[in-house]
């Protein structure tokens, strides 16, 4: 693996964490409307998977989608502006936190419906096969979405047609306000690939290099025309379902454990980079400082951006014929 790749992966993980911490702060200050969902603690999955993709490959994301968008190259300025509902945001302030998309970067949208991206990702994979253009489609979704019927419907078609589709289940242990283990008839989620004839692979979702490794293999399979892969990436949702979630359903001390240096995906990767002398402490500190500056300037850009004009309310419902 090249130094550039290590650099890029670490950079993206820290960028996501810094973005989420800032977004949380803005939300707590009542500067955001609706609900927002934090990706803190799950950064290694989006970053590891997207590092295995080309720019032309597509992803679908979820309501917990800021991390996927940044990992695929999304612009933090335009994202932050969208979170604050500004005219300069990715969606001109019409979508907010749960609907960020950048089609030029292959980001086919976050999605407010749990499992809503599953069909879209399968459709993008179908289009890749239709055009024989070698693109791969990745579908990020949580373990809660694993129980949506559309997973099974599209998995059957994707397996049947050998679509270049990678299902990435971020097993963060929670479905909204419950532990997901209450809802699985069989907790081994990799088995859910078996009836559809493609591999189901479990991976430590807090180990970015392990995630990258399995994603790379899945991408090779997909590009070879060998069909889909289900990756079950084990992780932990550090924050609540939304900001403001009272977390009454959660075992005390569990989240703290997942934040220690043995669990936290960023600390783990940081220590790996230091231990293997890939980067020095001062190089990492410099990088981290730059990223925090980048996020601070994204916040500033968003705060200085105008509110949308009311006239745009009626725009974009329909496109030109």
């Amino acid at each position, binding site marked *: 693996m090249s130094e550039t790749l290590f650099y890029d992966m670490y950079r993206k993980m820290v960028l996501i964490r810094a973005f989420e911490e800032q977004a949380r702060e803005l939300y707590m200050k009542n500067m955001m409307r609706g609900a927002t969902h934090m990706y803190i603690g799950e950064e290694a999955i989006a970053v590891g998977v997207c590092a295995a993709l080309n720019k032309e490959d597509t992803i679908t994301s979820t309501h917990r989608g800021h991390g996927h968008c940044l990992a695929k190259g999304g612009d933090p300025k335009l994202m932050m502006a969208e979170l604050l509902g500004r005219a300069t945001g990715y969606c001109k302030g019409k979508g907010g936190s749960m609907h960020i998309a950048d089609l030029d970067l292959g980001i086919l*949208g976050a999605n407010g419906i749990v499992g809503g991206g599953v069909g879209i990702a399968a459709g993008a994979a179908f289009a890749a096969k239709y055009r024989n253009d070698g693109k791969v489609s990745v579908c990020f979704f949580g373990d809660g979405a694993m129980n949506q019927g559309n997973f099974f419907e599209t998995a059957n078609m994707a397996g049947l047609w050998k679509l270049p589709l990678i299902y990435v289940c971020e097993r963060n242990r929670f479905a909204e306000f419950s532990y997901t283990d209450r809802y699985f008839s069989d907790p081994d989620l990799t088995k859910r690939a078996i009836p559809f004839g493609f591999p189901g692979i479990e991976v430590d979702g807090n180990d970015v290099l392990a995630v990258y490794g399995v994603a790379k293999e899945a991408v090779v399979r997909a590009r070879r025309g060998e069909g889909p892969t289900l990756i079950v990436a084990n992780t932990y949702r550090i924050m609540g379902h939304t900001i403001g979630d009272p977390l009454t359903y959660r075992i005390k001390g569990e989240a703290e454990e997942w934040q220690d240096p043995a669990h936290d995906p960023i600390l783990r990767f940081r220590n790996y980079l230091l231990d293997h002398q890939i980067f020095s402490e001062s190089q990492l500190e410099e990088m981290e400082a730059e990223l925090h500056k980048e996020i601070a300037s994204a916040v500033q850009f968003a705060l200085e951006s105008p509110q949308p004009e009311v006239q745009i309310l009626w725009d974009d419902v329909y496109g030109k*014929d």
Partner: protein
Amino acid sequence: MSERTIEFREALNEALHEEMERDPNVFIMGIDVGQYGGVMKVSKGLYERFGALRAVDTPISEEGFAGIGVGAALVGLRPVIEIMYIDFSCLAMEPIINQAAKVRYIFGGKANVPIVIRTQGGGGRGNAAQHSQSLEAVYAHIPGLIVVQPSTPKDAKGLLKSAIRNNNPVVFIEHKLLYNTKGPVPEGEYLIPLGKADIKRAGSDVTIVSSSRMVLLSLSAAEKLAEQGINAEVVDMRTLKPLDMGTIGDSVRKTHRLVIVNEGAHTGGFAAEVMARAYEEVFDYLDAPIVRVTSEDVPIPYNEKLELAALPSEQKIIDAAHGLL
């Protein structure tokens, strides 16, 4: 342009052949649309002509394949998704209503979803309550969708071609009792624009507005009314959303009376929408209250006598017109 007489299903089939020939991004997907040629034979010959990748047979997974259609459209293909009965579209409402209709808007206009959901509805064949619904009002209620309901072979072909070329999601609703009907269809290529109503019969005494199979009932009712000295104008909406209120309004300004015929259930049906718009826009021209002829507020029953009682009929339209004069 010279014309020939062909069936409604053949007209649709020609539209699909022509559009798939013209644009390699167009494909059709659905249950039995490929090898079998479609349950209504609308997609006959497409599999043989264009192959399995463009006439795609699917498992019975409406939410799944409608979602695949949305994703394919989002990356630039132009899917025609056939949902065998509109009743089954309830299984695909998530991709149609939450995704197809909304992603363009919520992405700030940076996406197109050029998908056609071709489906078939309506009663009159004894298919009972889960194969006979008229759900056009459900889809017309959703911002972001276009809703089309053709009544003649000529309109069906020209409207379907326009729907496929349109960059927005279109719910294209055919009627099961229209597939065997015949009518004149031009020989060469033509399009019928979405959003334009058509006066199917000119008249001066009362306006009858309808769509799909209800246009046929309205026309036969108009002939009977003519024998009784009442000259009805029959307006075919063709596209419910966007609704061509201009043509409807012009007709009412001329006749001063309005009957709306819609096969959907009475409460919250599309006739209520047309009625409200007419009261808002041409109230001053009305000489009598507007009357709706709709299906009864019941699930469509199986027994023939019961089903006929539930649906609009020629006689109900005649009675409604008489009530205004």
